């Protein structure tokens, strides 16, 4: 930063050294001349004392030089340029859980994982929507993690079928069918804040403060895609909406009931839908495996949503100033030892 300070510092040090070392004609003016000085200087005791004196002088000179160098370096303000990929903490995650009877254990696992993840969240927003024939928003996207944990615990109790928790699922069944996935996904997508601040959009939004970065959106969709009834929106329409809103859909299917590899099988449809949004599809044999998968999803999300590399410039005065302090201490000790 202030690198130009170093040449003047070197120049000043050279000038000082020259002034100190140049032969001084008058250096003996204040001293008295004595003869037979070798009678003193050749004494072994004097030689030993002189060696000690010289050692401390050398220490003092070294400490002085190191003090000068380190303070000059510190004055030049060394910087550390680090390239970091800031981890995004501006994700919006919507849990979209099918509450039809076959799904409850997978839902419980998903909810369990997220209630644990919520402990580590910092800036992420999480929301929960449950659906069967009708979608209910249990809680909207929020960063009030204690509240989210509380609600997730309630949801878990309900999915586990604990007594007294059945009211949690009230309103998800209206008799129009079951597992209306298209409607459920569309409801989840609707709980993201309205456009225009879509992920990846560089246009400053008018509703939000313009400085805040765009937030990524992902939907954890747990369903077996076993549709019964007439949805208002089909899965394909809902997925188009997700693509429109730049939301990734991660689909978890705990009960893959596909027969063969046909494109019209429910699992294949769900896979195509999820992958078309940039998300992924996971078929689970065991509902309890959902926990591991959700963690995997969470991790991929995290790395996929890493920000672009940024050069971070920080002052690094610690090392030179530390060396300067140390040199100062050594210099003090040496000066104390050298005092007449």
């Amino acid at each position: 930063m202030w690198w130009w300070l170093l040449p003047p510092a070197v120049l000043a040090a050279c000038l000082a050294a020259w002034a100190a070392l140049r032969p001084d004609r008058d250096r003996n003016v204040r001293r008295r001349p004595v003869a037979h000085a070798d009678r003193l200087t050749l004494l072994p005791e004097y030689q030993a004392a002189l060696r000690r004196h010289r050692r401390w002088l050398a220490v003092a000179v070294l400490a002085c030089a190191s003090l000068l160098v380190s303070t000059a370096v510190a004055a030049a303000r060394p910087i550390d340029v680090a390239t970091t990929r800031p981890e995004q903490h501006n994700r919006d995650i919507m849990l979209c859980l099918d509450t039809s009877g076959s799904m409850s254990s997978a839902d419980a696992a998903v909810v369990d994982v997220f209630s644990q993840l919520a402990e580590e969240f910092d800036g992420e927003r999480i929301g929960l929507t449950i659906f069967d024939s009708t979608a209910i928003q249990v809680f909207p996207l929020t960063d009030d993690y204690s509240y989210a944990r509380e609600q997730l615990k309630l949801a878990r109790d309900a999915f586990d079928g604990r007594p007294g928790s059945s009211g949690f699922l009230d309103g998800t069944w209206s008799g129009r069918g079951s597992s209306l996935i298209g409607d459920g996904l569309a409801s989840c997508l609707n709980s993201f804040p309205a456009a225009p601040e879509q992920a990846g959009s560089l246009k400053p939004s008018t509703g939000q403060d313009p400085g805040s970065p765009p937030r990524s959106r992902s939907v954890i969709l747990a369903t077996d895609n076993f549709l019964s009834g007439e949805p208002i929106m089909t899965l394909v329409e809902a997925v188009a909406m997700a693509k429109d809103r730049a939301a990734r859909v991660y689909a978890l299917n705990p009960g893959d009931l596909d027969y063969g590899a046909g494109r019209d099988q429910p699992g294949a449809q769900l896979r195509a839908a999820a992958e078309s949004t940039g998300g992924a599809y996971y078929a689970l044999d065991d509902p309890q495996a959902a926990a591991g998968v959700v963690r995997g999803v969470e991790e991929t999300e995290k790395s996929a949503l890493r920000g672009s590399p940024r050069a971070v410039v920080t002052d690094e005065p610690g090392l030179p100033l530390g060396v300067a302090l140390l040199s100062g201490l050594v210099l003090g000790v040496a000066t104390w030892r050298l005092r007449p």
Partner: protein
Amino acid sequence: MTSLLHRVKSNLAIFAHRKARGALDGEYGSVFRGRSLDFDDLRAYVPGDEVRDIDWKATARHGSPLIRRYVAVRRQTLVLVTDTGRNMAAAARSGETKKDIAVMALGVMGYLAHRHGDVVGLVSGDAEGSTALPAKGGEAHLERLLRQVDSAATLDAAPSRIEDQLEHVARTVKGRNLLFVVADEVPAGPATSELLRRLRAQHEVLWLTVRDADLAPADPSLQPDRTAGDSYSVSGGYPLVAHLARDPAVAAAYASAVAERDTGRTTMLRKAGITEGEVAASQGVINALFALLERHRRAG
């Protein structure tokens, strides 16, 4: 420039008021006997005169001691030998320059000789060469000798080597003379010892040592020149670190080395039959000379 001899005389005058007037003359006269058998006259006794010079008959008649004086047929020659190397421009124990003390001692001795009617010559120099000024009488000549010593002994002079001057004397000075050597603390050595024996066989030799500066005073508070901190060597100009010399171990080692050297020098001079005196300050010159002459007279 004030006359160097004038300074010597005022110093002598102060001394003469303190001690018995003329005592030094008596000492000098009895040391450097230059009498013939031709009686000249009588004079009053002064302390220091030889008892055997007293004219007892005249004393009995007169009531106070009288000394017989003879006509000196042979003028004594006093040869002043000193070192004018750069060592003499260094500090003495009192903090004065050793040269000043040497000039004072040479001046007193030369003036005594002059008063006694003797002629005074000078051999001085350093390691590069010796200068000999012929023996003559008169105050002007004595002043010239002192000027020669004073101007030659500077910090730019060559290193000191009193042995060269002594050898010069041994080589060139003929006849039996009185040698008065002023030097600093000369180390004892077999060559020097041999040279001194050789000189003593020919001449009457008096030796005055000017004490060198104490480089490692055992108790710095007792040092007369306490403000003088650091010193530098006249040979080479390198500085001595004063507080290193203040180290008790260094001071003790230095003191024992000095004592050993002093013993060696005293022994060497005594064995050669030379009387030695020592002086540390110019105020002490006359007392030191008095003691030296007295000792020499006693030693015979």
